[in-house]
């Protein structure tokens, strides 16, 4: 099923006076079988959690090939092919794995769809009111009990040092701070680091990162330590609660891990969604684009964070509170911060 470059290779050999042969990648035909093999090999050689997931829930990628290969026939439609690929990729149980076509996107979202939502934007609106402030991607205000509340919806929204300094100065009167990253599905890791740097006075080991060094399932670099350096600007010194739910994913997961390593910080809410593999992109012969986890990140004890981080205080939004327009997770955080302020 591999695609042949025979004629071009001969031409190249002549053009280089017979000195060299081509350096080429393995390519596959643009057929259902060729695209299937290309997709399977991309994951087999580049996906970073095959060994880990074999341990965690018995993922056997060779067996996956055998099982889904039977569904591939020469005359199948693109949509039928997509459906096979969608099911095959779901075996990885990874929200960072997507297949993009012109008509659909294959995704695995069970990591939050199977759990309580633990966030309501209509209830959040009650807390924010109409007079909240906006510093780039950060919405913030001072709640009635003198607790500062910050909502950060996406780590893709740029946050500069100036935004952070202005916001923290505005909230300096508060006795505690809530940073709400629920429903934040990630974005730029640099934004996560920039914000976290405002909450430590010393350099802290926050975890490790590896990258694949070759196509083998176990071909990894040594783990490199990841440190958080304190910001040279305004830094917060009072208690902080970080609010999480199952939709706190990817760069948000990394942010929560970082904050968890710092002093005076309490994680409140539900387990995060995970997503600790830095995603890379590739493509299939038919042009469909694929995204997958390429570099695993760990906590300081070298534990995988792919399936999420447990909060320090586990709490779900209760139906009673929601009926009363109350957010149980915000209320829990307020109680913790008020107790710490005593």
């Amino acid at each position, binding site marked *: 099923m591999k695609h042949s470059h025979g004629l071009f290779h001969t031409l190249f050999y002549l*053009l*280089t006076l017979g000195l*060299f042969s*081509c350096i080429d*990648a393995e390519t596959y035909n643009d057929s259902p079988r060729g695209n299937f093999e*290309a997709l399977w090999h991309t994951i087999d050689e580049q996906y970073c959690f095959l060994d880990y997931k074999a341990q965690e829930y018995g993922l056997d990628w060779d067996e996956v090939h055998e099982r889904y290969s039977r569904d591939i026939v020469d005359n199948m439609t693109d949509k039928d092919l997509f459906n096979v690929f969608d099911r095959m990729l779901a075996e990885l149980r990874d929200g960072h794995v997507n297949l993009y076509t012109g008509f659909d996107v294959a995704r695995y979202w069970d990591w939050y769809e199977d759990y309580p939502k633990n966030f309501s934007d209509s209830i959040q609106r009650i807390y924010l009111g109409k007079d909240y402030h906006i510093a780039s991607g950060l919405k913030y205000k001072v709640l009635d009990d003198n607790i500062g509340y910050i909502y950060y919806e996406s780590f893709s929204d740029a946050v500069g040092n100036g935004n952070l300094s202005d916001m923290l100065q505005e909230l300096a009167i508060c006795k505690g701070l809530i940073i709400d990253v629920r429903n934040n599905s990630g974005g730029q890791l640099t934004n996560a680091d920039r914000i976290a740097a405002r909450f430590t006075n010393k350099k802290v080991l926050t975890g490790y990162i590896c990258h694949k060094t070759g196509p083998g399932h176990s071909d990894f670099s040594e783990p490199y330590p990841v440190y958080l350096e304190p910001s040279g600007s305004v830094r917060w010194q009072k208690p902080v609660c970080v609010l999480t739910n199952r939709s706190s994913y990817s760069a948000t997961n990394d942010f929560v891990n970082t904050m968890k390593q710092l002093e005076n910080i309490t994680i409140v809410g539900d387990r995060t969604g995970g997503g600790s593999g830095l995603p890379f992109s590739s493509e299939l*012969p038919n*042009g469909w684009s694929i995204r997958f986890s390429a*570099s695993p990140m760990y906590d300081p004890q070298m534990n995988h964070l792919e399936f999420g981080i447990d909060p320090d205080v586990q709490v779900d939004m209760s139906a009673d509170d929601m009926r009363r327009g109350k957010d149980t997770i915000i209320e829990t955080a307020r109680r913790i911060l008020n107790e710490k302020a005593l």
Partner: protein
Amino acid sequence: MRRSILLLAILFTWAVSALSQENNSLPINHFVTRSTLVGVGYTQILDTYLSPAEYAGIEGRFLHERMRMTKLFGGRVSTQSMVQSNLAYTENRSGSGSEFAGMVNWTYGLHYHFPINGNLRILVGGLGDGNLGFIYNTRNSNNPAQAKAYINLTASAMAFYKFRIGQRPFSVRYQVNVPFIGAMFSPGYQQSYYEIFTLGNHDKVVRFTSLHNQPSMRQLLTLDIPVGGTTLRVGYLGDYQQSKVNNIRCHTYSHAFMVGFVKNFYLIKHKDPLRKQLPF
């Protein structure tokens, strides 16, 4: 052994004196040839850090060259400085993805001249070769671009053949450059630039290269045509860059048609017709 060394010394002395007799009317190191060419071509790009698919498309290319004789080895050595740049737009086979690529290449070095006869001259030498460029994939996530940075010591050979059609002098030239040892920047197989530049994990990102992992070549075939008082140069430039470093496979095959002008000049005014004396 002694006899061999003596024989080589005699041959070398003879060769040096032969060349100095060849152009004894002018101090040969005062000859300078400059050319500036532009071109368009077809390019094929593969970089498995970005995609396993080959992208193909058009490129624009610029080349500026300066050659000058020196006094070294009795005037048998010339210098060559060459700056090339190219910019390409390419698409994958299905047309669903695109990549932009650009590269600046600078070479500088020396060639030793072996005059075969009055019309043909062979040059052999070595060059320092620096390259800086990029490939940008328009739809990738955390691997959207690849930086290209590498230096080489490069073996170089050239042949000049001069001939006349009627009374008009023409010149054909072929040059081939093959890097044989160098160093190249490359991220790890799936190492992100975030990891390299933000977290500072940059060990193993500069690797030794040679023919086994960087079999590359540049070649240039040109024809110089006298047009009025100037010289038109047309030619083919083949640029075949390949590497397999940190398990990342790359190639860029470019074929460009080049056209431009050559300027020959002599650093001090001289009454002799310049074209008769030029070594290039």
